[in-house]
């Protein structure tokens, strides 16, 4: 479960997020939508503990700043940044040690197979393409075996096979009771994944829907209804 209460964040005089509150229950996939500059990245970075903020962020009932909360939290940032001198394998090994993760060797291998990284395990961070970095980033977040996982624009830079695999992963996580939050612009990519959606505009959540309440309605239609834009 991920809960955001009265979250506010300013950069100097600019108020990027203004008293935002929302909640993603256990085993559900939340999507955070909104135009550029709406404040999505600020929320994501705040949840990941990378910003100072006012308000409260709870992960499974614990403050997101506590080490206990961090232990069960996975994060895939929008722009992956690898350690130049660490191999793919060593990145995962580092995660295993940092999170005292129970992931087994077989499970790591299976992850690498799924994301076509099995033959790239010995490549150094600075030898990877952006797409490969994104795959490593996803594998590392999954190696945590998280209870709450955050994806910031996870499909950007991925090839079609990896996108397909990632969608499967998200559905598997949901079935395992993991709370997932995805921030994205690519509505068509999350069409079949979401349970609850939050639309942001100008530092506020301007609306939210639960899938069970909207029936067969398109995600596009819902989004443009709320933001006042036009579907092409």
């Amino acid at each position, binding site marked *: 479960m991920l809960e955001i209460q009265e979250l506010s964040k300013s950069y100097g005089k600019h108020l990027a997020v203004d008293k935002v509150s929302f909640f993603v229950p256990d085993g559900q996939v939340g999507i955070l939508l909104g135009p550029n500059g709406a404040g999505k990245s600020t929320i994501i970075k705040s949840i990941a503990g990378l*910003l100072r903020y006012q308000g409260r962020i709870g992960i499974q009932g614990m403050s997101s700043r506590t080490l206990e909360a961090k232990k069960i939290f996975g994060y895939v940032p929008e722009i992956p940044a690898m350690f130049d001198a660490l191999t793919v394998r060593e990145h995962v090994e580092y995660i295993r040690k940092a999170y005292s993760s129970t992931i087994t060797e077989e499970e790591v291998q299976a992850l690498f197979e799924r994301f076509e990284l099995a033959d790239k395990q010995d490549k150094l961070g600075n030898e990877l393409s952006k797409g490969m970095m994104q795959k490593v980033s996803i594998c*590392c977040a999954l190696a945590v075996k998280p209870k709450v996982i955050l994806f910031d624009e996870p499909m950007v830079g991925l090839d079609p096979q990896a996108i397909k695999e990632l969608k499967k992963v998200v559905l598997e996580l949901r079935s395992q009771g993991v709370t997932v939050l995805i921030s994205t612009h690519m509505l068509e990519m999350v069409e079949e994944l979401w349970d609850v959606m939050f639309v942001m505009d100008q530092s506020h959540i301007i609306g939210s829907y639960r899938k069970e309440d909207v029936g067969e309605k398109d995600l596009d239609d819902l989004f443009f209804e709320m933001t006042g834009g036009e579907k092409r």
Partner: protein
Amino acid sequence: MRALLYLTWRSFVNNVKRALKKPVTLILLIFLGVYAAYVLFALGRLVTELRFDSADGLIALVSVWSIYIFLADFIAYSSRKGVIFRQAHPHFVFPAPISPKLVLIHSAWMNYLTSVIVSLLFVLVGVTVFSVEPWRMALFFFVGCILELLLEVSLMVFLYTNESLSERFIKGLCMGIKIFLGAVTLFLVLYFRREGFDLDSVSAFFDWPGLQMIPVVGWNIAAYRLILIGPTTLNMVCTVLYVCTVAAAFLMAKHMRCGGAYYEDAAKFADDYAEMKRRKNSGEMVTGIGEKKRKFRRISGNYGAGGAKAVFYRQLLEYKKERWFIFTKATVINLAASAVMAFALRQNVARTEVPQLFLLGMTAYMTLVFSGITGKWETELKSPYLFLIPATPFKKLWYATLMEHIKAFADGIVLCLPMGVVWGVSPGMILMTVLIYTVLQANKMYTRVVAQCMVGDFLGKTGQDIIRMFIQMFIIGIGIMAAVAAGILIHVNLVFPIILIYSIIVTVVMGALASVRFETMEQID
């Protein structure tokens, strides 16, 4: 902590492996090691010859180091720029379940390594050169390494991670530290201004009791004095104060609450640091981390040039939007160097009857030695649009670099005019030197491209620069020899036109060779 140690260890091992794969790096490391040993040996002999090889001499050296490191550390930590974070930190380390204090302490490991190495060096020279008893040097190591590191870490933790005190208070405190440091610096300047800067005043300064009374750094020096030359009332009191300060700072840092609020600054630092490295690697001149966002002037008007010429006009438009137009830090360096050399060498130059040759020599020196400054032209090569323009590679090269020639001409005036005027060189000769500077800069630029094409990424940026310097020195050397021969055999004033004409010919040839780089975007590594 286990994970962080793993991270550092594996990075170290992989970096060593990578370095060993490149023979050039290995040779460079061996060369640097031998050079460092030679410098240490030479300094040791110098110290002995100057009869400085006693505990007092070591005290003077250690005091200089303490003051330097104290100033450097305080400034860096108070502005939160003393610890290097990489862009991978916000991705992999900050969200991880690791104490933010540990993350900070671990990230500064390079700083500790410097302190440990310097302390070990002091121990080594203390025993061998300064003839201090080993037990004293062991104690010295304890104070210089353990206590000093403890103080440094505590200070770093306090300034970075403090969340109990308001941001405003911390900023005020940092400002206070900077004012204190400014006062210490001013005090040193005033002292040496009054007493003069010679061996006696330096010795007197280090023996002066007031030095040991300066809070923290003075107390630290007092502890060294106590260990190395024995107890006095003053150094014992100050040492106790130092130990108490370290203990208090340590306890305060240990018990401070920290949830990782500093990660925001650290993540910004990581981005700024990566940007600084990127700019440095692409040959730009960078003076600091996190330089302020550049502001551009608004320019109205249009330009209507076609083909490769459009590249030049686009650059012109960009420069017009710059605050200082085509004048950069290189201009300031040229002006400062020119002013300093003009007055410093005035008497030497006056004794000879060929000030114009001094001017030429200085200009050539500045061209050859200052290598890292590039303009907008190198970024042109990174844009695919340049290669799509329907024009010959030579034309593209010319228009992509034309602005650099104009800039070099302006910088050349700034460099040559002050020296030329002060040394009494005729206007014609000054003009010719400016032109030679401009052509040599162009030559440097093209030779660099040729060097890039020759060695690719195999030798890295430094290797390319060394190759560039060798090619340029070789080619220009031939011209200089020819010019000198003509100068001796016919007339000294022939040196200038011969060098100018020769440089133009060589530069055109180099330009033609370098234009290959403008053929396709793909280059051979």
